[in-house]
């Protein structure tokens, strides 16, 4: 492969296919840990580390993992790396472990990671997969950081704990503020995307790796089936 396409694998995750703002994946951590910029970076870096490792390993093993048990195999590998990252964080950055709490082990079910495994790493060679993971991770971290900075600045008047504003609009740190800021950011991303003439995702399920087996589609199909059964 040429150098240029490597660069493309890396940069696509940051802007064009930003996992949070464009693909709307990994909404739970995006909302939960962005009460401060510091937390956002901690989460972003931890998830990026898991993403790069799992992408690399899954891509290297892609010929050995039977298709039938693909998903459980991916989940096991991801869960393994999450636990390793968790132990390393606990040992060398206990402050991050304390502030992320339950959301650190919950990286396992972050759909970005399983999503990249299923959509990219399971089909591509190791080096592009690592770059893809790195790019997606950086994009995820950037989006989290943006949320974290906005919420911390408005909610506690500070960024990274440094007091900047005299006013504090507490609601931005509380759960409703998370939903609201995220909504506003998606609106902005949609607006920029429509200006660039791209299709806008309307539900979080569109980019979800489990979309084939779940999502609204199957729910709607289920509804149809149910209706037919009644009829």
């Amino acid at each position, binding site marked *: 492969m040429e150098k240029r396409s490597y660069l493309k694998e890396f940069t696509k995750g940051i802007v064009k296919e930003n996992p949070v703002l464009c693909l709307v994946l990994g909404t739970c951590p995006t909302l939960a840990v962005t*009460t401060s910029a510091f937390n956002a970076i901690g989460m972003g870096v931890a998830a990026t580390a898991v993403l790069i490792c799992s992408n690399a390993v899954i891509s290297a093993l892609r010929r050995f993992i039977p298709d039938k048990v693909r998903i459980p195999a991916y989940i*096991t590998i991801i869960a393994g790396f999450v636990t390793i990252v968790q132990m390393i964080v606990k040992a060398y950055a206990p402050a991050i472990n304390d502030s992320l709490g339950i959301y650190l082990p919950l990286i396992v079910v972050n759909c970005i990671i399983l999503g990249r495994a299923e959509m990219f790493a399971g089909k591509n060679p190791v080096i592009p997969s690592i770059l893809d993971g790195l790019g997606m991770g950086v994009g995820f971290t950037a989006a989290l950081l943006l949320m974290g900075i906005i919420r911390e600045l408005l909610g*506690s008047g500070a960024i990274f704990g440094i007091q900047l504003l005299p006013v504090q609009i507490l609601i931005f740190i509380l759960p409703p503020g998370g939903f609201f800021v995220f909504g506003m950011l998606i609106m902005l991303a949609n607006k920029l995307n429509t200006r660039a003439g791209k299709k806008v995702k309307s539900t979080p399920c569109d980019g979800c790796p489990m979309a084939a087996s779940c999502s609204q589609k199957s729910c709607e199909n289920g509804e149809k089936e149910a209706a037919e059964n009644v009829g």
Partner: protein
Amino acid sequence: MKKKLNAKAILIPTVSLFLICLVVTALLALTDNATAKKIAENEAKSKQESMFSVLPGAADFDEIEADVMYLGKDKDGKTVGYAISTASQGYGGQVKVMTGIGTDGSIVGVDVFYNDDETPGLGKNTSKESFRDQYKGLSAKESISVSKDSSSGQTVDAVTSATISSRAVTKAVNEACQLYNDYSQKEAK
């Protein structure tokens, strides 16, 4: 209707999945081995720092009850007071508090050394000095309450909009005082 069971089709996925689980488990055991000591050290260290911060005069600590009560001594081995670790349920989760009680039975210092499940900007402010310092000088003999709940006796003002977290800290401090009282009564006998 009946599907023919192909031994190979079942065996290969099972074996490969089993191998993956085995390798992952081995890797985890390895990492755990490498980090377990460091993690335990970190936990002990954060507690120790907290103990020194609530008993400013102490140079060394003797264990009275592991993980709960410690006797603080100064450089000459003279008792300066007790550091007691207690916990209570806050708004988002557990709140862990270290209370320092002097030999005269008054509170010397309070440190909230774990409140990460509390809301940032609200409940987390209970670890700020302006709130913690209110406990200084209060007596361990009487229970303390948040001024919103009671106007008589020893009170502290709750952190604005974080009454639940403030109550949790107060409760933990009271519990520490209780432990201190029980201990000093036992000693007196």
